[in-house]
């Protein structure tokens, strides 16, 4: 298995629809300042994707495996993340 989407599909998620636990603080920073779109690469779950048409970072928070790298890895401190509400988010069966 190589594709990230296939790998993420093996995980069990309890999705908290309507309660995103990740936010981009300022989309202008993604658009104007960030040349590398680093989160698109270092996030292990492919949560972040730059949408060239809409000119913004799209956040698929439902894929998140909750490692927390986004809050540290973004060179512009532009990602704000919270713990999903108790019982929601990824639920590892093996760990």
């Amino acid at each position, binding site marked *: *298995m*190589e594709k*990230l989407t*296939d*790998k*993420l599909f*093996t*995980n069990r998620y*309890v999705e908290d629809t309507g309660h995103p*636990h990740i936010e981009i603080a300022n989309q202008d920073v993604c658009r104007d300042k960030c*040349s*590398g*779109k*680093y*989160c698109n*690469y*270092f996030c*292990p*779950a*492919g949560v972040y994707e730059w949408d060239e048409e809409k000119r913004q970072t799209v956040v698929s928070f439902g894929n*998140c*495996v*909750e*490692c*927390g*790298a986004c*809050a*540290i*890895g*973004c*060179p512009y401190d532009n990602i704000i*993340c*919270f*713990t*999903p*509400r*108790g*019982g929601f*988010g*990824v*639920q*590892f*069966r*093996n*760990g």
Partner: protein
Amino acid sequence: MAEEEKLDAIVVGAGPAGTAAAITMARAGLQVALIEKGAQPGSKNVMGGILYTHYLEQVVGDDWKTAALERPIIEEQRWMMTDQAAIRLLGYKNLRNRERPHSYSVLRARFDAWFAQKAEEAGAFVIPETVVEELILKDGRVVGVRTGREGDLLADVVVVCEGIGLGSHLLEKAGLKKPLRANQVAMAVKEIIALDPGLIEARFNCEPGEGASIECFGSATRGLSGFMFIYTNKETLSVGGGALLSEMSDVRLSRDELARRTPNALMNHFKSHPAIKPLIQGGETVEYLAKMIPEGGYKAIPKVYGPGYLVCGDAAMLSNPVHREGSNLAMESGRIAGETVIHAKEKGDFGEASLREYRMRLDRTWVMADMKKYDGAVPLLEHNPQLLGKYPRLLDLALDEFFRVDGVSKWEKQRRIVRMFRKHGGVRMILDTAKAGWTLARPFGR
């Protein structure tokens, strides 16, 4: 809230650190709440993972024998890889580990659930599915926690074992810890790959029920500062690894280079290596996980005590990446924190001076000694990429020359190897390798 509704201690996070602290305190008769964000303890927790039972035994005594462990590790292997070869630097099958195993593969969702059950049996209140949103401070002192489900809970002391995962920012929000930097953490991913136990034993040369650990450097991580691993579980393999987050988010890199070193790209690169592929062939990935690992060394340790609070485990940045140790530092720090709280309770003093006992005891144990010893290890690799890139490739070429039987005399082969080393900076390689060995061993460090 009335005085009698106040707990003796609140522990935030039911990982190895928090649960060890909770068990230690509950067994001494303290009123302890162990709060966990996951649906059950372990459901958000990830490690490689090899667990060292000595430290578990320190916490639960003989009960460790009933722990949810996978396979005892009988054989340790370390491979230095290039794209076309794997040099087995170490293959150490230690049969003493049959009689006296000291390390086991574990799956944390199962282990942590078992461990937290021990806390419950000891009398702690285990409260899952509950996120601690912030520490409650009063006159500069931590007096409790604000939770998502249970409202405010008050206690004499809060033991913060929140880890460094997503949203683990309680200490930062309270101004008690600086935000982490990308060169202080490793970004690691793991796949759980289901494989028939018989196949696991055949491929990894293990007796039934026994296990092996393989850690791979060099090309395994495309030369980045980290390693990839395979650990054998009962019916699965844990395959994963990673490198410093700063190496995956470096603003000097091109997009193509960034794409080559994403966590999943490193994983696929490793899994497709000709020396790894046959080991995992036919296995089915059943889970994909990621975790950040503290790798900032001794210097990255935040203040671990203060008025009304203590910090243990990953949250305290206690980990030894060179020896892939983390959960043992967590359990040991949790246990010592628990004992500190027991003493503080006897004294009736939960102030900073009283809780300082925790840090002083950590300083006197192997925990801080090891943290100091390996303080320079990760920066060494970070700043000397030749150690995991160019030098392994040189060694590989030399071995290829030496072992290839192709009509060239051994004298000539030796001459060729010497010429090759001269041409590619062999003296520098010897010096660098010696320097690296010195930095890791630090014979006069103390």
